[in-house]
C-alpha cells in the first residue's frame, strides 16, 4: 500500500468519520484481511450480526462497503486503510476473494462501457457540430451585447445605487448569461453582486475593479481575433467555453516531482470547488488541479498537501498556463519538509508577469520564503527580515496560529492572492509542513 496514515486521514469526509476510522484501525476488529496490487479488503465486525464487507480499489481510489453509512468513504474503509498503512503485516498479500474480485471486474466493465459510449458520443458528425457551434457563438454574442448594456447602465446610474439593489438584480442578469451559454460571465456578474453585498470597507474600489475587468473582458471578446492565440483561449474560457479533458490530455505533458503545496475549498451554490496547488521541485513551475464535487459528494483527495509526487501533468492552454490535469502519478507520495519559495519582491514580480500575460488571472498562488508573520495594529502581515512586507487576508485566529508556528522566526508561507492581500494556505517551519 502506497498511502501514509496522513494521506488516509486526508481522505476522510469529515472529522467524525476520521475519528471513527481511526477507532476501527485495530487488528481485532477485522477478519479476512488481504491486499493485492489493486485492492485492499476485509470483514469488519460492526454492531450487527453479519460483518461488513469493506473494500478499496486503490487504483482510483474507490470505496465500497456493505455498511448502511452514507458517508463516503465510510469509517470502515478508512479504518481498513489506516490498518493497511500502519500495520501492513496484518494485511497479507493474496488473491481477492470472490466478493472483491466481482466488484473489481464490474468496475472495469463500467470503465470500458464509459469509454465506448464516449467514443460513440464523440463520433464525428462535423456538420452537426459546426452548426451547434455557430448557434452558440450567436447566442454568446447576443449575451455579451446585452451584458454590455447592463454594465453601462450600472456605470451610468452609479455604484452607490447599484449597492442598494437586491440579490435578484444580479441573479437575473447572471441567469440571462447562463441562458446565453456564457456561464463564465454569469459567474462574474454574481461576483459583482457578492462584492456589492459584502459590507467590506473598500467595497466601491473592489466593485469598480471587478466591473472594469469585466468591461476589458467584453472588449477583448469583441476583438478576439486580434489577440495572440493563447490569450484567445483564455478569453473564450473566461466567457464560458470549456476545453475537453481529452484535448488537454493530448497536449504537451510535463513530468516532474511535484510538491503539493496546499488545498483550498470553496462552497458554491450546489458545488464545492477544490483547488490543489502544485509546484515542480525542479523547475518551480506552478500548477492548479481544479476539481468539483456536488454538495455531499466527496472531493478528489488523492493529492495530499505536504507531500511530493513524481507525476506527469497536462496543462490547459493559456497565456499563463496554471490549470492542469493529472495524467499519471509515477510514485507513491513522499513527505514534503520544505516549501520552495521566493522573496517578496520576486513573488510580486511573478504575479505581475502573470497579470501581464493574462489580465484576469487574479487568484494566482505565491510561495514566500523566509517571512515572519507580524500583527500590526490588528492587521496581519508577513515581513522579510530587512526586506518588504505583504498583507495577509486572514482572520485573527489564523494570524495567531501562524505567529505561534513561526515564533518570530522566518517561515515559508504558501497562499493565494485575494486582490492585494495573500490568503495563507499552508506554511513550513522547522521542517514541519502545516496546513492552515
Amino acid at each position: 500500500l502506497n498511502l501514509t496514515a496522513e494521506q488516509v486521514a486526508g481522505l476522510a469526509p469529515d472529522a467524525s468519520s476520521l475519528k471513527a476510522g481511526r477507532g476501527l484501525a485495530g487488528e481485532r476488529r477485522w477478519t479476512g484481511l488481504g491486499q493485492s496490487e489493486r485492492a485492499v479488503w476485509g470483514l469488519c465486525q460492526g454492531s450487527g450480526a453479519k460483518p461488513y464487507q469493506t473494500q478499496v480499489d486503490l487504483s482510483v481510489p474507490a470505496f465500497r462497503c456493505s455498511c448502511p453509512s452514507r458517508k463516503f468513504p465510510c469509517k470502515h474503509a478508512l479504518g481498513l486503510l489506516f490498518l493497511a498503512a500502519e500495520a501492513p503485516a496484518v494485511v497479507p498479500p493474496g488473491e481477492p476473494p470472490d466478493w472483491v474480485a466481482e466488484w473489481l471486474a464490474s468496475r472495469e466493465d463500467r470503465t470500458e462501457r464509459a469509454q465506448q459510449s464516449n467514443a460513440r458520443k464523440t463520433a464525428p458528425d462535423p456538420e452537426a457540430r459546426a452548426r451547434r457551434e455557430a448557434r452558440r457563438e450567436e447566442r454568446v454574442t447576443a449575451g455579451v451585447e446585452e451584458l454590455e448594456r447592463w454594465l453601462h447602465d450600472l456605470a451610468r446610474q452609479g455604484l452607490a445605487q447599484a449597492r442598494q439593489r437586491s440579490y435578484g438584480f444580479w441573479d437575473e442578469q447572471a441567469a440571462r448569461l447562463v441562458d446565453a451559454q456564457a456561464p463564465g460571465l454569469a459567474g462574474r456578474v454574481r461576483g459583482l453582486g457578492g462584492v456589492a453585498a459584502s459590507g467590506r470597507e473598500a467595497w466601491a474600489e473592489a466593485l469598480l475593479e471587478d466591473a472594469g475587468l469585466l468591461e476589458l473582458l467584453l472588449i477583448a471578446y469583441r476583438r478576439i481575433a486580434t489577440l495572440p492565440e493563447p490569450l484567445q483561449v483564455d478569453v473564450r474560457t473566461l466567457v464560458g467555453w470549456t476545453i475537453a479533458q481529452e484535448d488537454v490530455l493530448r497536449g504537451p505533458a510535463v513530468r516532474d516531482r511535484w510538491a503539493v503545496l496546499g488545498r483550498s475549498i470553496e462552497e458554491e451554490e450546489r458545488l464545492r470547488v477544490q483547488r490543489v496547488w502544485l509546484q515542480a521541485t525542479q523547475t518551480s513551475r506552478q500548477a492548479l488541479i481544479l476539481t468539483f464535487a456536488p454538495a455531499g459528494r466527496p472531493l478528489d483527495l488523492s493529492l495530499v498537501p505536504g507531500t511530493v509526487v513524481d507525476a506527469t501533468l497536462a496543462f490547459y492552454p493559456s497565456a499563463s498556463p496554471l490549470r492542469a490535469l493529472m495524467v499519471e502519478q509515477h510514485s507513491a507520495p513522499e513527505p514534503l519538509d520544505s516549501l520552495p519559495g521566493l522573496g517578496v519582491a520576486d513573488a510580486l514580480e511573478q504575479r505581475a508577469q502573470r497579470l501581464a500575460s493574462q489580465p484576469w488571472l487574479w487568484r494566482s498562488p505565491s510561495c514566500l520564503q523566509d517571512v515572519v508573520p507580524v500583527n500590526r495594529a490588528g492587521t496581519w502581515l508577513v515581513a522579510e527580515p530587512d526586506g518588504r512586507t505583504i498583507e495577509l487576508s486572514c482572520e485573527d485566529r489564523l494570524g495567531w496560529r501562524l505567529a505561534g508556528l513561526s515564533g518570530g522566526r522566518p517561515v515559508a508561507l504558501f497562499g493565494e492572492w485575494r486582490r492585494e492581500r495573500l490568503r495563507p494556505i499552508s506554511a513550513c517551519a522547522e521542517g514541519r509542513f502545516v496546513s492552515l
Partner: protein
Amino acid sequence: VSDWDDHVAVALLGTERRAPPSQSLVSVSKSSSAEQRLLASAGALALYRHAGRVAPPAPELPVPAPPDTRPICPPAAVLRLELLFGERRELLAEWLRALERRGFRAPPEHLADLLEGATAGPELRDLVEAVLGERGSWLAAQQPRWAWAAPIPDGEDDRERMWATGERAPRQRLFTVLRRIDPGAARRRLEESWRQESSDDRLWFLSALGEGLSAGDEPLLERALRERRRDVRTAAAALLSRLPESAFARRMRERALALVRVERGLRKRLRIDLPDALDEAMAADGIGDQRAQGLGERAGWLAQIVGLTPLEAWDVSGVSPDQAANLRANDGLEQPFRLGLVQAAHVQRDPRWASALLDLAPALAAIAPAERAAEFALARLREGYLDAAVALPAPWPPGPSARGVALLVELIGADDVRRARLLADRLHPSVLPEASALLERQDPDDLEAGPRARMLIAFISKTLTLRHDMYQELE
C-alpha cells in the same frame, strides 16, 4: 493613485451625474460611450495598480521566541488534538496532562487555540501552561487576553514598574510567577502595596498566596484578618490555619482542644463542649463570620474552630483520623465536629485525613491518595453516586481500574448512560484494550437493556478506543 480615486468617485455617483476623468490609461475609440471609457480605464488602472505594486518596507520584527528544549508531540498526536478541539473537549484536560507527563510540548500551530481555550475555560490554565514551552509563553506575551500565561520581565526595575503601574492581569501574573520562584519577594511586594490595593485585588492576591505559603507570610495574613471585608478575612484565616506554627493556629488549637476531649473508658468516645459565647478574640479570628447550615449558633462556632485548627493537633492529642471520623460524642455533637474536620481536610489538602473522611465528604477523593480514592469512587459508583468519580480526574490507577471493568459492563447492562460514560472516561489506559474486548463480546440481546444497549456499547467502545489511542500516540 489620485487618478484611481477620481475613477472611484465618478463610478459611485454614476456618469449621468459626473463626467469620467479625461485622462485614461487605455485608448478606447472616440465613439465609445462615457460608461465604457470609465469602466475600461478603471479596469486598466486596477491591473496597473496590482501588477505594479511595490511592497512596503518591513516594520521592526518581534524578538524571536527562545529555543525550546522539549520536543513537539508526534504527528498522530497533533491530529488527535485537532479532533479533541472539534468534539470530545471533555478529554482535552486528560490529553494535556498526558502530554506533559511524557515530556512533550504542544504543537506550535495550536498554541493560540490552546491559549484562547484556557482563557475562556480557566480550569484548563495550569494544564495548558505546563505544555506551552518557551514558544507558548512568547506568544502569550503578545496578546493582552493571554496575560495569565505570559512570561514576567527579567529585570528588577521592569518588574517594579509592572507591579507599580501595570494592569490587573499582568500584575496578577507577575505575582503568581514570583510566588513560584521567590515566594518571600512576592510577598514583600504585596506587603508594600497592600494599602493601595482594592479589596477585590486583596482577595485575589490572598488566593494566590496558597502557592509557596510559609511562616514568613504570617504578618501579612494577620493584617488581612483585620480587614473589613468578610471574604478577605475568611481567606486569610484559612491560610493561617495551614501554618501550624502561627499564633493563629496556636489560638485555634487551644480553643479546639479545650472543647473536644477523648474519654478513655470501656468504649472510647468524645466529650465535646460547645463554646459558651463568642468572645472578642474569637470574633477577631473570624469565628462567627459564617453560619454553618443546619447547625445551631454554638455548634456552628465549634465547626468553624475545628475547621481552622491544624489537623495534626488531633494526632498529637491521641485522636487518629479514623477515630476522629468515627467516634461518637455526647449529645450528637460529633456532627459539627466532623463537619469541621472535613473543612480542615479541604483547606489543608491533607491526604491522610481526606482518606479517613471520604465517607463524610466524597469530594475529598480529589485529595486522598489515588489508589484509595479510586477504590472509593468505584464503590460510590456501584452504589449509584457520581460525586467521588467526578472529583477524581483520569486516569485512575491500574488496580482499581482493572476492577472497574466489570462494573462498566454491569452499568452498560443496566443502560446507565451517565455512570457508564463517566467510568469509561476515567479508567487507566492499561485496562482499556481488555475493557474493549469484553464489551465486544457483549450481546446486546442478552442484556437487560436489550437493543437499547447497542448504542451505548458503541459509544463506550469508541471512548475506550479513543483514549487508548490517545495514550499510544504519545508513547
